[in-house]
């Protein structure tokens, strides 16, 4: 069980800065998800933690010990790769046994032919067999031990990769998009299995994904990485409800958050699309972006409601998305509604509003601005618009 600390990790490939100073403390036994758009450096960071890639500067500490220059296998971490990376020529049993054999046998005992003659090898091999079979039973692989990876389904291969990782009981696990090659249904199933595994092993899990559903459902904390920086770390609810940066707000949540151009006035009032919001801020006057999650958009008339035309409807059974084109915004605004209510026709004119506590405001640089409801407001949940 291990605490993993990263201090000022930088990485450049051919003069291109990929990681720009990552500080991250991962607690012992924590399940942390690392999310971010493609190419932001998630895999690179994971490989630096594993020791597969040297960092350009900064340090990695595992349980307080600086591990720079320590070989990957000696860091006592296990990694599960997106492609599973099973040895194609070995059976499932041998695949899972490899890390144990490399650890428990001497170099001589691992030699083909000669090794078999060594005294004590049989006993070690017996212990390895027991451990592999225990792990196989835990992952329901017992019936498949004699097969080669080529004869397994994607989900089974995934489990073999997990088996190979857990068999030597490392202090931490690194997962690089382990579920992205599975179909949607299996992914949901494996999600639950991995979460269960974490509860069972109580080891530190670092889980890279760009699937936010995985991050939101499995992890205790999410670190959002954008362009080589960790922009925000927090619980899934915090990251979703209180994004500190507009890029986090836009990356987390599907469909994407609605962004509307707004203005901070000299008198500290706020305007969106030329309408006044019943909110104040202490931030300096200037342009800003007003964001509202689709599920917080409300249909209906009212003073100051935003008028628009329905351009598209998505009916997903449990929910429906209404795309509304509004003047002065390129992208349509999205409203997520329950489908049991009467949905508007495509092409019809509708009005959208939202309550004051649904609004998240970001300044021109993309940083979050804190807002307060004016003192005179007594109602707890006052509508900001509409």
């Amino acid at each position, binding site marked *: 069980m291990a605490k993993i600390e990263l201090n000022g990790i930088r990485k450049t490939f051919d003069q291109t800065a990929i990681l720009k100073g990552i500080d991250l403390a991962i607690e012992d036994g924590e399940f942390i998800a690392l999310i971010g758009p493609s190419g932001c450096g998630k895999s690179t960071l994971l490989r630096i933690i*594993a020791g597969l890639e040297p960092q350009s500067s900064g340090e990695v500490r595992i349980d307080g010990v600086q591990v720079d220059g320590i070989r990957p296998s000696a860091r006592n*971490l296990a990694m599960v*790769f*997106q492609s599973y990376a*099973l040895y194609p020529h070995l059976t499932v049993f041998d695949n899972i046994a490899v890390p144990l054999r*490399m650890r428990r046998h001497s170099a001589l005992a691992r030699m083909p032919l000669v090794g078999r003659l060594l005294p004590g090898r049989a006993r070690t091999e017996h212990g390895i067999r027991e451990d592999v079979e225990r792990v196989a039973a835990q992952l329901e692989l017992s019936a498949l031990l004699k097969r080669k990876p080529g004869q397994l389904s994607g989900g089974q291969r995934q489990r073999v990769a997990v088996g190979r990782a857990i068999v030597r009981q490392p202090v931490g696990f690194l997962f690089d998009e382990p579920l992205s090659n599975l179909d949607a249904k299996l992914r949901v199933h494996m999600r639950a299995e991995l979460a269960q595994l974490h509860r069972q092993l109580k080891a530190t899990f670092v889980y890279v994904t760009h699937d936010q559903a995985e991050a939101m459902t499995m992890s205790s904390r999410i670190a959002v990485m954008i362009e080589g920086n960790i922009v925000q770390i927090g619980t899934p609810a915090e990251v979703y409800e209180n994004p500190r940066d507009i890029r986090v707000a836009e990356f987390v949540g599907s469909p994407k958050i609605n962004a509307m151009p707004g203005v901070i006035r000299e008198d500290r009032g706020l305007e969106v699309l030329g309408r006044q919001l019943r909110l104040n801020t202490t931030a300096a006057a200037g342009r800003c972006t007003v964001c509202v999650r689709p599920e917080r958009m409300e249909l209906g008339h009212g003073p100051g409601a935003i008028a628009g035309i329905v351009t598209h409807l998505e009916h997903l059974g449990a929910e429906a998305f209404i795309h509304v084109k509004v003047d002065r915004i390129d992208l349509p605004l999205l409203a997520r509604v329950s489908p049991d209510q009467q949905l508007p026709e495509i092409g019809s004119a509708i009005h959208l509003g939202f309550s004051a506590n649904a609004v998240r405001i970001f300044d021109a640089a993309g940083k979050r601005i804190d807002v307060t409801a004016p003192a005179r407001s007594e109602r707890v949940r006052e509508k900001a618009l509409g």
Partner: protein
Amino acid sequence: MTPRPRAIVWSVARHSLLLAGAAFILLPFVWMISTASKPQTEIFTKSIHFIPHSFALWDNFATAFGKANLWRFLLNGVVVTVSIFVLQVLIALPAAYALAKLRFAGREVLFALVLFCILIPPQATAIPVFLLFHQFGILDSYAALIVPFTISAFGIFLMRQFFKTVPDDLIEAARMDGISEFGIVWRVMLPTAIPALTAFGIFSVVAHWNDYFWPLIVLNSEHLRTPPLGVASFRNEEAGTNYGPLMAAAIVIIAPLVVAFLLAQRRFIEGITLTGIK
């Protein structure tokens, strides 16, 4: 459904062309077997006949084995080709792994040099190597037959191209599992590269089994002769060329390659198509 007449004509033309080509290539072999089966008197007749009137194959084999130590030549061939191939693999695989998967300064330059070495014909370096071996005093030995071929630039190139296609994840997984870099070469890369290695093995074994030039230069002793050199010794012996036993001996020395090919035909073809080299 009957095929259209034009298709039949085309198919006939195609097959006769292929048959003619096959016959052209097979003719020397057929002639070799035919000659090996004839007694001396029939070989120099004016008329061409493939089937001998009196069958003398066994006599010719007996003469061939009696005149020269063919078993010894075959054994020499096996010792030399196997040693060369094993040493080539021992050197080419780690080199190819480094060139394909490790990052170090000067890698591209080294690879360019390997490519350049493929272009140098062995005849060009024959004299310097001969002089060098003379200095070392290892002419006329197995070492003289084996050592010059242990580093195969072509082998390094071929395996490097194949290793490029092995996913990096597999190598990194091996590093996480605690396998050393040399361990990765033998435990991970070698097993996945069997098809490419088979292809390389064919080229190497065929080339060195049949090599005539180099053994001719470095050898004096009869007991070290490789198969082609041994067969050639039938020609200029004082009694004049005796073609029947000569052809019988030729059959003996190509037999191991033919048998090996027939046994492992499918693997060979897999290996060769895989590397895209013919």
